[in-house]
């Protein structure tokens, strides 16, 4: 376990209450409310521009919400940003980071900021580096590495201090099938002790179906449906529907998809 990371308190890993995010005139997230319980992997699903990344950026303190509140284990990221950031592990949507550093130099910086003892940091780092097969590229500047390798480095950085809440924005993008499999197993294992939580955004329905205990379906910044797969099937009154068809139904995109295919000459 992380050395200086406070033990997770009894409050739930994440509470988002009536969240609003705006960029100038454009509303990105509106009246969004959801909760992640201890031991839960929560998936945020939505099309491009649905508000997933804006929600995640608000949780990790990159975007200041216009209204509403966020609590990470009961702490407010606006009033206690350092306390909240100490509890979080974050994988951003893009792999843009310190291009001039090597993975080893970057992870050394992260371990220093996270105040990890050297022995613990090295033990974890060696294990993750070998598991994700990035050890051979550890001394090469990030600028020279592929997007997939950069993504793996970000995943290692997020897991390094064994955070109480993992916030992952499209974490499987760019990863090879082997690493995707490892990541899925790792996340399932991660919440098994029933204290931690994972917020996971994706637009890949299969991944969400396999991995998430509950999902929230976002559309134009609003939550259109929420719950486990069974809850959502009940919500759309379709007993054997896949998450994909539930998603299209809740976001009223089914007809739009048919129309698009027709216009492209697909039938």
């Amino acid at each position: 376990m992380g050395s200086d990371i406070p033990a997770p308190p009894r409050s739930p890993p994440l509470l988002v209450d009536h969240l609003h995010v705006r960029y100038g005139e454009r509303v990105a997230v509106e009246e969004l409310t959801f909760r992640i319980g201890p031991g839960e992997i929560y998936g945020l699903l939505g099309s491009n521009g649905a508000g997933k990344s804006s929600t995640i950026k608000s949780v990790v303190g990159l975007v200041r919400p216009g209204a509403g509140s966020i609590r990470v284990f009961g702490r407010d990221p606006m009033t206690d940003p350092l306390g909240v950031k100490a509890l979080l592990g974050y994988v951003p949507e893009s792999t843009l980071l310190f291009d001039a550093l090597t993975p080893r130099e970057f992870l050394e910086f992260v371990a220093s900021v996270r105040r990890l003892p050297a022995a613990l940091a090295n033990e974890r780092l060696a294990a993750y580096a070998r598991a994700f097969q990035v050890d051979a590229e550890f001394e090469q500047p990030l600028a020279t590495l592929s997007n997939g390798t950069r993504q793996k480095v970000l995943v290692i950085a997020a897991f390094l201090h064994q955070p109480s809440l993992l916030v992952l924005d499209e974490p499987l993008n760019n990863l090879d099938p082997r690493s995707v499999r490892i990541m899925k197993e790792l996340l399932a294992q991660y919440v098994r002790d029933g204290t931690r939580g994972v917020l996971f955004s994706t637009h890949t329905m299969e991944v969400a179906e396999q991995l998430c205990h509950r999902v929230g379906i976002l559309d134009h910044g609003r939550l259109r449906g929420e719950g486990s797969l069974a809850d959502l099937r009940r919500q759309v009154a379709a007993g054997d529907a896949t998450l994909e068809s539930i998603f299209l139904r809740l976001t009223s995109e089914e007809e739009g998809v048919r129309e698009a295919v027709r216009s492209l000459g697909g039938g």
Partner: protein
Amino acid sequence: MSWREAWRLADPAYTELAFQAIYAVRQGNLLPPDARGSLSARARRRVLQSKALVSAVLGLVSLGGIVVLSPVFETIFVAIMPRGLYVAAMFSAILVIELTLLWWTGLQVLPAFLAAGIVPLLSTLPVAPATLRRASLILFLRLFDVPVATCLILTPLAVGIALGSVAAALVAVPAVLSVAVFALALALVTGRFFVRRVQGARGGHRETLLRWTYLVLWAIPAFAMYAFIEIAPAFVRIIAGLTVTGPSSLLDLIFATYPLPFASLPTFAAGLPTSGTLSGHPRYGLDALPVVLGLLAYSAAVLGVGRWLAAAPTRLAAEPGATAGAGPVNLVVRPGRLSVAVLRKDLRTASRTPGFAFLILLPLLSSAALGLWTFASDPPARESFDLAVGAIATTTFLATFFGPAFFAIEVMGYSYTRTLPLPERGVLWGKVALAVLIYLVAGALLIGFTVLRGFPPGLFLAFVAAELPAIVAASTLELGLLFRRARRTGLPIVNLFAGAWWAALVSVPGLIVAGAPLVLYYALAPSGTTGAIVALALGSLAEFAVFVPATVGPGGRRAA
């Protein structure tokens, strides 16, 4: 394939380049959350402002020519050398300064030019290779348009006014043109060197040492130009000395060296004397032959380099990025204190980023060169001490002036860093530590030379230590102001070129704080060095006591 089509391609590409330079989205920065209206227009405006700032400095150098080339200023040297030689030597100094400044500007913008990935994107469009080459060239030239235009207009104007000759002004144009061509080419060549040898270099102790060695080697030519500015008066005296000893092949050689053949043109155009009798002694001049030969050679070089320059931006931007070779793998990390981690990150980043590396090396090489100069010129011990004190004062100003630049490193991975539990105080101390480190290494270099000179280094050591709290106070104040701005706008200063306004503005209070104790020292030094150093220490400590708590006091635990 017309230039018009190339321009049509280059214009939106330039907007993208300005956008990347200001907002650095591809370097991991976030757009301001309150973004509205045209961010692109705002980015173009800010790039123009920064160009205007660089151009203002160049304009000052150019117009300074009116003063230094005038007969009034020349009276300092008139007794020892013919006016024509004086004008040629001083004009060449102006050209060297312009070359250095343009080159330095190039070093700032070149990483943005390469990182923006615009040329590879354009190359996927169905456009003829010639059009693509022209579009890339236009894009590259637009990075320098206002600064180069400033030199091309103001420098000949200044020469014309100072010498009272239209012909002198006209022949100054090719001189400035050659400077622009060489500066742009140097920026490209050194930029390419960086991408290939430094940016992609592996980590590890041996490789880091090798990388810094490369950097020092790379900085030496640029530094030689900078050193030339510092020793220009001595250079003029050397030429004057050679005119006394008689016709000299060394004098001919000097006048065949770039940029003197071009710088001699106004002398010949205005009909100024290059030899004669001064104070009753004959003064030998130079033959026209070395100047003509030099002119022919350098004109050919300008043409050749110009042709190379026409295709180089496309080639360089399309080349594959940096790739590191194979080598031993080290998985061991050594986590440390926050400020040390920031300092290490900054040094590692700087070692793979030309602009930052240059800024760190400039004060160090300056100290080394001044120490060497002091040692070689063999002045008396007292004079050596004064020279060493002057050198460390210069380093003080450089360390504080370039302090804000280190803040710009934060733009890299900025959005990611903001998700880490990194207190503002940790980042700030890391940056202050870098400024202090530069100051101390420069001081150590100078102390090394003072010991070699044979005078006791105790007083000098006391001087360096006494000024140290003022350096900390100045850097802390500058960085505190920058953090305040970053908190308000959500953006750090992006790079030295794009954020030059802020870097310059914030440096003003920093320079005042760093400079005030030095003023006190120089005011009191005539009545005793020890007393003056005590006063310097007291003033410096007082500033430390005021500015450091005020900057890192209650807000220091804020997230960076």
